């Protein structure tokens, strides 16, 4: 190719950049030079860069969480356990209308009620906020319009809860009803009164909040080359996180005029920022105190209206204000999994290669943007791996509707479309006459590769995951061979280990995570970190990392992670970033201290610090362990001149990714992989599905605390089972949420929970702390498709609607029975006869296995670009080798003429381009 290639992108294509290396995105067009030393080198052919730090004291050992005794003895203080003297109780007045203009709020009767101290409305804090800076569309309380039933309109602080509740009853609100939208498909159309107004950037006069168009690879050849195709239209119900602790918050303005907000938050830093905006108070005057968090799963990661309300009421009343939610209010705040309509088409060619994935995802955002901008991307880009693919077409749209807002929930944006992909893989295997595990093993990207969208993937343990669940579950003896009504199924997952592009950050200015250490003469190490322990054990991981590097027992490490006043800024517990980024920062900080200790020990012992090693509270000569001093002696020597030892360590991601619009969404310093096998029993007469056993393999790089990793895997299975079997936010015929309570929002009970066999796979990531990657969200992804595929193996029906409640399942069974003119009790399980392709795939899988193990240990980690399987040079992106492989992020006029469902969002022009009213 000699001529200049047509560039269809927001920026430019890789290799044609005006600057030498692609930046990691953000608002700046150019990367700024940075101190590469700050990013620890990550190359080691025969081991990990952190291997020389491992003293063997805690890493890799099953470790009880360091705060577990607080919890099991009931002494942990969660949001609602905070009691300050003179506290008032706050209650929120919520909209009873789906969509209405608020004409007037009459609080006079409530104010006269004895015991009522303060009442606030939207007028008290009109500034907008939102977790993403590009989509701030929330207010503390409704300004002008109420956008869903449960939207905050006003709030009340009173001396006790009964009075506060009575005051809420006395507040009279006059509404003018507007036409509400409940069906997400309606959100794509023009509306006389869009739910939000984005000014010049509004998309037509529709309710489309975000739209994405992406085409990569050989789009033209996708269907042409296919010998088998899978097509499906999925409908996923919305799901709520179902955490144990309802939201609770306490706000207090102290005598020096500073605000302290006690809240069980996953992301204290964003609340900190939003409070500053809404209260018009500088950040340094606000202290966000994270209480113990009774579960988050993404549901406590937005800055919330009730947090603003508590602060506003407290300022008005001059007393602390505590607001504690009822479970119903948790559903009004929601931020759960998006209800979604996903069209998923997969194509395979004669070689059993995945020559194309086409996805169209319409997601129902509810009334606010929340994390939706990101979710819209994630529904597409997070299924461009682990398989090598020939083409990827994605259209996504997120619309506002008059429902509680959807947001980030464990497996953010990846869960639903991953389920659709994996069920598609199962169907393709069926159509090709091959085993679905073999099909996967013959199409995996190798370690150190670049996906079709340009994600840099480092370690990949996908193959080992598949092989191990295959063996553990007895797959070959069971698949398509179990008795009628019994089935077994496989599903895989791929997830980011920390977002490469932080939400609220200037990537070139600040690190992603910072950890401070302080050691004084008592020898205990105080760790200051802002990482939010939400039950996942981040305090424990950071303590383990420091203990490991300094060769100390865990009880000498004290973690202070609660208050923004004392902790360094951390971006919070989302996108599975904490272990990867925070432990890396902790290691850097601890290495710093270790150097000082070794220097001091060198002075005392006269041994060069190069040959000194640290271990079990002693520093000694590695050639003659008899020569050495105790840790405390070294510490005191090091302190002689400077008092307490302090150090700071930080982590930021290396430059990664391509440069098209949206290239930043989905890039991560590492990715986790997983493969689950589920065995189920389906009652053909009732449609009831019982999951009997799950074999779960997850590649977390290195299990720093295997106990936690296993817990995350088992917990993920429970959560995922809920979404696949029974959990659903049900909306009634008038758009009302019919089940905002835990009796009717059906979280599986202990009876529904099968045995889970957790299998930890360690691919030893070159950049992860001690080799670790995430284990918090990725483990949830495979369980949904594994169950769906097992159901097919059991009873021969493919679902495309979740959850598969018995009534839905029975409908599918009836349909099959009608087609085959049999009774449900006479239904037979499908059987498989291998085609010739099976042998082809098996030998390719064997070749690839050899290739992968060679790549995993080689020194050169230049990436293998997606496309090599289709005959291209792996060293160069395929689109630079062949004109048929395209990179496009704007739809053609032809596409807009006959778009798919979510793709029809592109029919509108932004107002600034002449669209809309």
């Amino acid at each position, binding site marked *: 190719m000699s001529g200049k290639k047509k560039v269809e992108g927001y920026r430019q294509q890789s290799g044609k950049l005006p600057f030498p290396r692609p930046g990691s995105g953000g608002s700046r067009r150019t990367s700024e030079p940075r101190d590469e030393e700050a990013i620890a080198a990550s190359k080691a052919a025969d081991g990990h860069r952190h291997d020389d730090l491992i003293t063997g004291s805690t890493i890799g050992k099953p470790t009880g969480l360091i705060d577990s005794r607080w919890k099991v003895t009931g002494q942990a203080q969660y949001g609602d356990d905070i009691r300050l003297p003179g506290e008032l109780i706050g209650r929120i007045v919520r909209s009873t209308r789906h969509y209405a203009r608020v004409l007037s709020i009459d609080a006079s009767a409530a104010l006269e009620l004895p015991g009522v101290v303060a009442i606030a409305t939207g007028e008290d804090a009109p500034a907008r906020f939102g977790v993403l800076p590009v989509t701030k569309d929330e207010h503390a309380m409704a300004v002008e319009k109420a956008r869903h039933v449960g939207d905050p309109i006003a709030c009340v602080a009173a001396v006790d809860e009964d009075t506060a509740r009575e005051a809420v009853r006395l507040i009279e609100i006059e509404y003018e009803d507007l036409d509400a939208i409940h069906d997400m498909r309606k959100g794509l159309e023009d509306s006389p009164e869009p739910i939000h107004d984005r000014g010049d950037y509004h998309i037509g006069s529709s309710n489309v909040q975000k739209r994405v168009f992406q085409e990569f690879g050989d789009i033209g050849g996708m269907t042409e080359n296919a010998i088998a195709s899978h097509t499906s239209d999925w409908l996923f119900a919305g799901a709520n996180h179902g955490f144990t602790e309802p939201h609770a918050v306490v706000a207090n303005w102290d005598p020096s005029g500073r605000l302290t907000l006690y809240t069980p938050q996953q992301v204290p830093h964003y609340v900190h920022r939003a409070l500053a905006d809404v209260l018009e108070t500088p950040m340094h005057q606000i202290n966000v105190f994270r209480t113990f968090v009774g579960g988050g799963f993404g549901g406590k990661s937005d800055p919330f209206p009730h947090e603003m309300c508590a602060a506003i009421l407290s300022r008005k009343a001059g007393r602390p204000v505590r607001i504690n939610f009822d479970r119903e209010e948790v559903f009004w705040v929601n931020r759960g999994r998006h209800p979604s309509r996903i069209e998923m088409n997969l194509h395979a060619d004669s070689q059993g290669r995945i020559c194309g994935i086409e996805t169209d995802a319409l997601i129902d955002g509810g009334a606010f943007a929340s994390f939706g901008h990101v979710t819209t991307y994630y529904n597409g880009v997070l299924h461009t791996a682990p398989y090598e693919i020939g083409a990827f077409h994605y259209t996504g749209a997120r619309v506002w509707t008059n429902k509680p807002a959807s947001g980030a929930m464990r497996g953010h944006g990846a869960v639903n479309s991953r389920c659709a992909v994996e069920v598609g893989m199962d169907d393709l295997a069926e159509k090709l006459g091959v085993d679905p595990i073999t099909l996967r093993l013959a199409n995996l990207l190798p370690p150190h590769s670049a996906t079709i969208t340009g994600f840099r993937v480092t370690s990949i343990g996908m193959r080992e995951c598949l092989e191990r669940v295959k063996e553990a579950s007895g797959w070959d003896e069971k698949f398509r061979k179990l008795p009628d009504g019994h089935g077994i199924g496989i599903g895989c997952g791929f997830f980011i280990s920390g977002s490469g592009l932080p939400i609220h950050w200037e990537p070139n200015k600040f690190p992603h995570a910072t950890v401070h250490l302080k050691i004084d003469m008592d020898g205990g190490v105080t760790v200051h970190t802002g990482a939010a322990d939400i039950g996942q054990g981040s305090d424990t991981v950071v303590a383990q990392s420091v203990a490991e590097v300094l060769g100390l027992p865990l009880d000498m490490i004290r973690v202070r992670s609660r208050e923004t006043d004392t902790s360094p800024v951390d971006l919070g517990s989302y996108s599975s970033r904490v272990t990867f980024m925070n432990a890396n920062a902790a290691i850097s900080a601890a290495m710093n201290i270790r150097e000082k200790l070794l220097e001091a020990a060198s002075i005392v012992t006269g041994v060069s610090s190069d040959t000194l090693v640290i271990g079990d509270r002693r520093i000694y000569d590695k050639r003659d362990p008899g020569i050495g001093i105790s840790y405390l002696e070294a510490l005191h020597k090091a302190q002689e001149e400077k008092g307490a030892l302090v150090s700071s360590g930080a982590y930021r991601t290396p430059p990664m990714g391509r440069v098209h619009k949206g290239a930043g969404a989905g890039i991560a310093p590492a990715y986790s992989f997983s493969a689950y096998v589920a065995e189920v029993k389906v009652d053909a007469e009732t449609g009831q599905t019982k999951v009997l056993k799950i074999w779960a393999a997850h590649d977390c790089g290195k299990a720093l605390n295997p106990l936690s990793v296993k817990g995350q895997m088992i917990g993920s299975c429970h959560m995922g089972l809920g979404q696949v079997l029974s959990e659903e936010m049900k909306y009634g015929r008038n758009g009302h949420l019919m089940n*905002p309570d835990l009796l009717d929002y059906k979280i599986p009970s202990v009876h529904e929970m099968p045995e889970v066999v957790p299998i930890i796979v360690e691919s030893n990531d070159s950049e992860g702390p001690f080799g670790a990657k995430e284990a918090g969200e990725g483990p949830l992804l495979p369980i949904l498709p594994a169950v769906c595929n097992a159901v097919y193996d059991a009873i021969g029906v493919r679902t495309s609607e979740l959850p598969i409640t018995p009534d839905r399942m029975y409908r599918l069974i009836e349909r099959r029975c009608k087609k085959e003119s049999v009774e449900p009790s006479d239904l037979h399980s499908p059987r498989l006869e291998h085609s010739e392709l099976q042998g082809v795939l098996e030998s390719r899988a064997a070749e690839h296995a050899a290739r992968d193990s060679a790549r995993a240990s080689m020194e050169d980690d230049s990436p293998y670009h997606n496309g090599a399987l289709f005959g291209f040079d792996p060293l160069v992106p395929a689109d630079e080798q062949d004109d048929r492989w395209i990179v496009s992020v704007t739809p053609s006029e032809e596409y807009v003429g006959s778009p798919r469902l979510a793709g029809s969002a592109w029919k509108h022009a932004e107002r600034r381009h002449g669209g809309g009213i």
Partner: protein
Amino acid sequence: MRMPPFNLHTPETLEQAISLSSELGDSGEEFDWVAGGTDLLPNYKWHLNVKPHVISLAKVSELSKLSETHIGAMVRLHELEDSDGVHPLLSKVAAMVASVMIRRSGTVGGNICLDTRCFWFNQTEEWRESIDWCYKCDCGTGADCRVIPNQNTLCVATYQADLAPVLMCLGATIHLAGPSGARSMPLHEFFELDGKTRNVLKTGELVTHLTLPDDSGEWMGDYQKLRQRDSWDFPEAGVAVAWKLGEGGAPAELRVATTGLESIPGYHDEEAATILGDWKGRASLEDLAESVRTAVKPVLNTWYPPSYRRKMVKVLTKRAGSGLTEV
């Protein structure tokens, strides 16, 4: 959730309880009985038809008697589940009610008198305000029923208690006491087809106990329950089938009852009699299941859609009666 304030009365004998109820009744004060509280108190927290007075039966020990043929209203569900001499079918159904913790507190009388349920009704006050209330708890507005719109004369909330169909199949008699004396009736005559009135209890009247006929030990049968989860959930449909074998192993008597489908439990004596008159084994069971399916008329107000519940009634009936074809 906050419990609204009410006056709690704790009589120690049945006589005291009744005189208290009659005093309150005479002075026009509204009240509720509370036994285990697992149904009433959650409803109170949601401000559903809250009364200013509540009379607790917790201290009335004479209501707790349990024998093979006598079941006091205050017998706890777990006692029914665990005690010797209780009919095995009754033990089985008791163990299927709600969850372990609820069965420690919930009582037989409370389960029989369980309030009817509807997803337009079992919601918080704020939620119900957003739908402008409903007929079952209209808060003085005269609101329409939300399930069958444009009418406010019939409540179709669903009766979702498990014990009643089994007790009906075992031929139970229910015994009531009140200011105007005691009375008894077959259990299937106790219920009244309306989700609001629910049963024949008059103001001040309460259930004291149930009795089973002396031959109940000769009856066998089964209860099948449809629900999403094997704990906590109310029956979306429940079918009890019981029979007494005659000579030659064919059923001499047959009873079928259902729950979770309408505002009262269904007692399908006509269907059972028709089928029993011409008993042909497995085919007859199929016919019985079909006739029960057509007899019930569920509406859309619980977790599963009514069409599915109705179809499942047939499956449940066949399964509950499967013992009949094995003899």
